[in-house]
C-alpha cells in the first residue's frame, strides 16, 4: 500500500464523519463522493444525469440519474455496477409500489432485487452459498444503493418519513443473483420475453423472507406442503390475498426437476395447496373483508362485507402466477426461502434489461 494513503486516512475519516453527521447514511459508514468520482458513475449510465427515474410528488421530491449515481457511490458500488442500479430503479418504478408511498408505511418493507444473466459473473454477484447473507461487494452495495437513494433523495429516514413499526433486516440491502447454472429450469427473465444472453434485474417490494428447511424427503408433494404452508400463514394475510417469490435452493429445484416438474407445475401445485380453512380464518379473525380497504377483519366488524357462507377453503393466492420461482443458494442442503412480496398477483414481474456500457 502507498504510505501516503495512510496519511490521508484522517481526512477520509473526517469526511465519513461529516457524511454521518448530515444523516446521509443508513447507519454504516458511506464512501465520500467527489465530482470526479461521480463522473465515473455517470459515464456508465448511458443517459442524461438530469433524467428523472422516480418522482414522489406527495413528498415534493424526485430521484434523478445523478442522485442515483451519488447514492450508488455512497453505498460503495464500483462505477461499473451503476447500470444494474439503474435497472433496479426502473424495475421498482415499473412494479409501482414505491411511488405509492409504500416505503413510508408502518408495514416496513424493503426493495428486493434479483439479478440474472452474464452481468452476474462480470460484477462478481453471488448466486450460490450465503446468497441472502453478507460477503459480496456487488450484492451488498447494489442493494444498499437503492436504500440510500430512498433515504437521501426522498428523505425516507426512520422516525421521520419512514414510519416502519419494525422494518426488516433486508432494508440494509437485499440483492441476490439467480443460480442459473444449477437450476433445472430456464432463468427468470426468459419467462418474460428476454433471452439467457440478456442481463436483467427484477425488483420487488417485500415484507419478509421466511426460511424453509426440508432435508427429509425426495417427494415433491412434501416440499410443496412446506412451501404452501408458509405462504398461507395467517400473519401474512393482511389483504384479500398474498403473493410470493419462492427462492429454491438447487437441491430443492433439482428435486422438482428430477420428478419432471416444470416451474409452471410447481406454481400450480403451490397455488392449489396454499389454502386456509374457514375455521383457521375465523380463529385469526380474518374471515371477512373490509368494504373500504379490502383488508381482512372479523365478520362481525362494522366495516365487514357480508360473507357468503363458509367456503371450504380460501386460496390465499389469486392464481398460480402470483408465485415466482427462482433458484439461488448453494447446492449443499434442502434449505429454501419464501419471500413475501406485495406483488405481482398474477401480472408479470417487472423484469428490466440492464442497459449501458456493460449491458
Amino acid at each position, binding site marked *: 500500500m502507498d504510505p501516503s494513503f495512510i496519511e490521508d486516512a484522517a481526512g477520509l475519516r473526517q469526511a465519513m464523519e461529516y457524511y454521518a453527521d448530515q444523516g446521509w447514511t443508513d447507519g454504516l459508514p458511506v464512501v465520500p463522493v467527489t465530482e470526479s468520482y461521480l463522473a465515473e458513475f455517470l459515464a456508465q449510465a448511458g443517459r442524461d444525469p438530469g433524467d428523472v427515474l422516480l418522482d414522489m410528488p406527495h*413528498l*415534493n*421530491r424526485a430521484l434523478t440519474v445523478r442522485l442515483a449515481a451519488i447514492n450508488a457511490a455512497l453505498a460503495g458500488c464500483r462505477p461499473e455496477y451503476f447500470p444494474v442500479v439503474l435497472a433496479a430503479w426502473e424495475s421498482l418504478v415499473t412494479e409501482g409500489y414505491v411511488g405509492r408511498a409504500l416505503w*413510508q408505511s408502518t408495514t416496513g418493507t424493503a426493495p428486493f432485487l434479483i439479478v440474472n444473466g452474464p452481468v452476474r459473473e462480470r460484477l462478481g454477484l453471488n448466486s450460490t452459498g450465503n446468497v441472502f447473507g453478507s460477503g459480496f461487494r456487488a450484492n451488498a452495495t447494489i442493494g444498499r444503493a437503492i436504500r440510500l437513494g430512498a433515504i437521501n433523495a426522498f*428523505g425516507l429516514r426512520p*422516525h*421521520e*418519513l419512514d*414510519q416502519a413499526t419494525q422494518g426488516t433486516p433486508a432494508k440494509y440491502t437485499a440483492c441476490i443473483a439467480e443460480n442459473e447454472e444449477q437450476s433445472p429450469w430456464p432463468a427468470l427473465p426468459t419467462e418474460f420475453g428476454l433471452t439467457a444472453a440478456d442481463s436483467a434485474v427484477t425488483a420487488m417490494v417485500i415484507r419478509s423472507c421466511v426460511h424453509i428447511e426440508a432435508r427429509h424427503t425426495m417427494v415433491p408433494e412434501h416440499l410443496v406442503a412446506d412451501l404452501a404452508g408458509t405462504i398461507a400463514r395467517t400473519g401474512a394475510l393482511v389483504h384479500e390475498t398474498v403473493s410470493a417469490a419462492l427462492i429454491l435452493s438447487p437441491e430443492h429445484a433439482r428435486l422438482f426437476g428430477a420428478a419432471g416438474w416444470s416451474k409452471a407445475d410447481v406454481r400450480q401445485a403451490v397455488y392449489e395447496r396454499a389454502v386456509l380453512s374457514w375455521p383457521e380464518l375465523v380463529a385469526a379473525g380474518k374471515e371477512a373483508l373490509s368494504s373500504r380497504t379490502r383488508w381482512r377483519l372479523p365478520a362481525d366488524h*362494522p366495516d365487514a362485507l357480508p360473507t357468503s357462507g363458509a367456503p371450504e377453503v380460501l386460496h390465499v393466492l389469486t392464481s398460480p402466477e402470483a408465485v415466482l420461482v427462482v433458484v439461488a443458494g448453494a447446492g449443499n442442503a434442502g434449505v429454501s426461502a419464501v419471500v413475501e412480496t406485495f406483488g405481482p398477483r398474477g401480472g408479470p414481474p417487472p423484469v428490466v434489461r440492464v442497459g449501458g456500457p456493460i449491458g
Partner: protein
Amino acid sequence: MPAVSICTDPFVLTAGAMARSYGFPGFEYVSIPHPVASLSAGQIRERARGLVPGLVRILGVE
C-alpha cells in the same frame, strides 16, 4: 374547503417531517391516542367526541 388533518400520537414525528418538507413547519393538526384500527364503533365515537375541541380551535371557530 377548510380542513384539519388528524393523526394518532405515534405519527406526530412523521406529520412534522411532512409539514417541513412542504415548507410549513408550524402546520397545525390534531393528534389523538393510538390505536384506532382495532377500536369498536363505540370507542371510535368517543375518540371523535374528544377531538372536536381541537378541530374547532384550529379552524378558528369562535
